[in-house]
């Protein structure tokens, strides 16, 4: 009797188990799916990466910093005027001249802070700076912009016959900037950057010129392909002297170009009316005008080297 009971119980339960299986099967597929979704959670808000491909556009520095233990080698070149008195065929449309050359190094102290050193041909300006990306845009837009501060000190080391540099402090120039950048889509990024320039010796050294002035820059990049984009850059110094002066006459620096990324290198080829590369120089002293043919071809090459200690492969 007991045996029959047991058998009955067994068949009953197995029967139930089998009977439940078809609907249970369907359930498990969808439940495995929903379980997976609940486990992986909602997509976390991540910091937006690569708002710009490099630390430089045409005139502006971007919100990007160099990551820890990486070295960015920067070469910027501006040729001579394409048109006007100094351009044309006799100078191969400016290629015979270089209005400015900048060689610089940017080294990542942390992932968000880098130290920069560079030298310009223009005013022989040596500059040392720090750049700190203290706020990252997030993918859920809870933080809509990236914020980066830049501080630079410039030194003009050349000798002069006048006494303007008798006070050594007159050789120093300062630059401070807040970069407000947003990656609107994977194609389009833009930034505006209020800045402050201080030249201990007003530059250019002309009667009435100010030591201090503010400036506002706007720049953007629109990618045409994954690796190539159009960049535009514009800056306006808020300076009464520069607005009112007739001789010399000042113009707002601006530029347009294309940016190509090749994995490691970023090239920018551009046209700009600004002769100088350092913001202390081009914000202070841009006297060249697009309309007079005083614009030039230029390029920027940046290359990142990674000095992180070699790791053993993680693929095990």
């Amino acid at each position: 009797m007991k045996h029959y009971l047991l058998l009955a119980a067994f068949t009953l339960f197995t029967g139930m188990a089998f009977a439940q299986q078809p609907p249970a099967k369907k359930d498990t597929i969808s439940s495995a799916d929903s379980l997976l979704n609940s486990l992986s959670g909602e997509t976390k808000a991540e910091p937006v990466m690569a708002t710009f491909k490099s630390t430089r556009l045409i005139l502006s520095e971007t919100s990007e910093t160099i990551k820890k233990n990486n070295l960015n080698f920067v070469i910027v070149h501006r040729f001579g005027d394409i048109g006007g008195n100094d351009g044309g065929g006799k100078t191969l449309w400016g290629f015979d001249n270089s209005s400015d050359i900048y060689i610089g190094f940017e080294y990542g102290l942390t992932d968000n802070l880098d130290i920069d050193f560079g030298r310009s041909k223009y005013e022989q300006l040596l500059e040392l700076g720090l750049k700190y990306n203290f706020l990252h845009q997030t993918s859920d837009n809870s933080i809509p912009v990236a914020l980066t501060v830049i501080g630079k000190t410039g030194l003009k080391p050349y000798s002069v016959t006048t006494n303007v540099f008798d006070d050594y402090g007159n050789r120093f120039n300062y630059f401070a900037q807040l970069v407000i950048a947003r990656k609107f889509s994977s194609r389009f990024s833009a930034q505006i950057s209020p800045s402050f320039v201080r030249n201990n010796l007003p530059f250019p050294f002309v009667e009435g010129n100010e030591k201090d002035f503010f400036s506002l820059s706007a720049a953007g990049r629109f990618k045409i392909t994954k690796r190539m984009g159009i960049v535009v850059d514009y800056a306006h110094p808020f300076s009464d002297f520069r607005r009112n002066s007739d001789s010399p006459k000042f113009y707002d620096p601006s530029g347009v170009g294309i940016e190509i990324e090749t994995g490691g290198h970023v090239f920018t080829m551009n046209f700009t009316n600004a002769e100088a590369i350092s913001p202390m120089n081009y914000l202070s002293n841009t006297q060249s005008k697009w309309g007079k043919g005083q614009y030039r071809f230029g390029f920027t090459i940046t290359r990142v080297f990674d000095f992180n200690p070699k790791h053993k492969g993680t693929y095990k």
Partner: protein
Amino acid sequence: MKYIVIILLVWFSNQAGQDTYVCKNAKISLFSKAPLEDIDATSNTGTSVLNVATGDMAFSVPIRSFTFEKSLMQEHFNENYMESDKYPNATFKGKIQEKLDVTKDGSYPVNAAGVFEVHGVKQTRTIKGTVTVSKGVVSLASTFIVACKDHNIEIPQLVFQKIAETIQIKVAASYTLYKK
């Protein structure tokens, strides 16, 4: 005899709840041989669900969770190749073809047939792997190849650091019983 009935009862009633295993820290690595330097990256935040009764399984890994030796490589991986802002996860949803017996220790070669989605492109694939049961711990390991072109991952001509056209993927997941 009564005891046997009770044991059977308990066994059957427990059966349903003991089918689902989960893993929240699956290790997923990728490797690619490149002329200049080998590229490898690892994520330890893959999630997986495995139903040992039905064989149903699912895997998901956030693309952003892969860490590379070089930060620039990681940026290029996310920005240029995987477009992780558009396609944040890689997933596999399928079914293990073999019957699994997790009550016995051992190592079982398995084939999982299902849909593998990377870079927004779904591929129907059968992926070989091994299910190991050791002292009640169920784990799964697999190595397979993903061809970039199968998932519309473009390798541009104008790069100095060329990457290989196929990527080796290694998956290792150790499961725990899912408790509701």
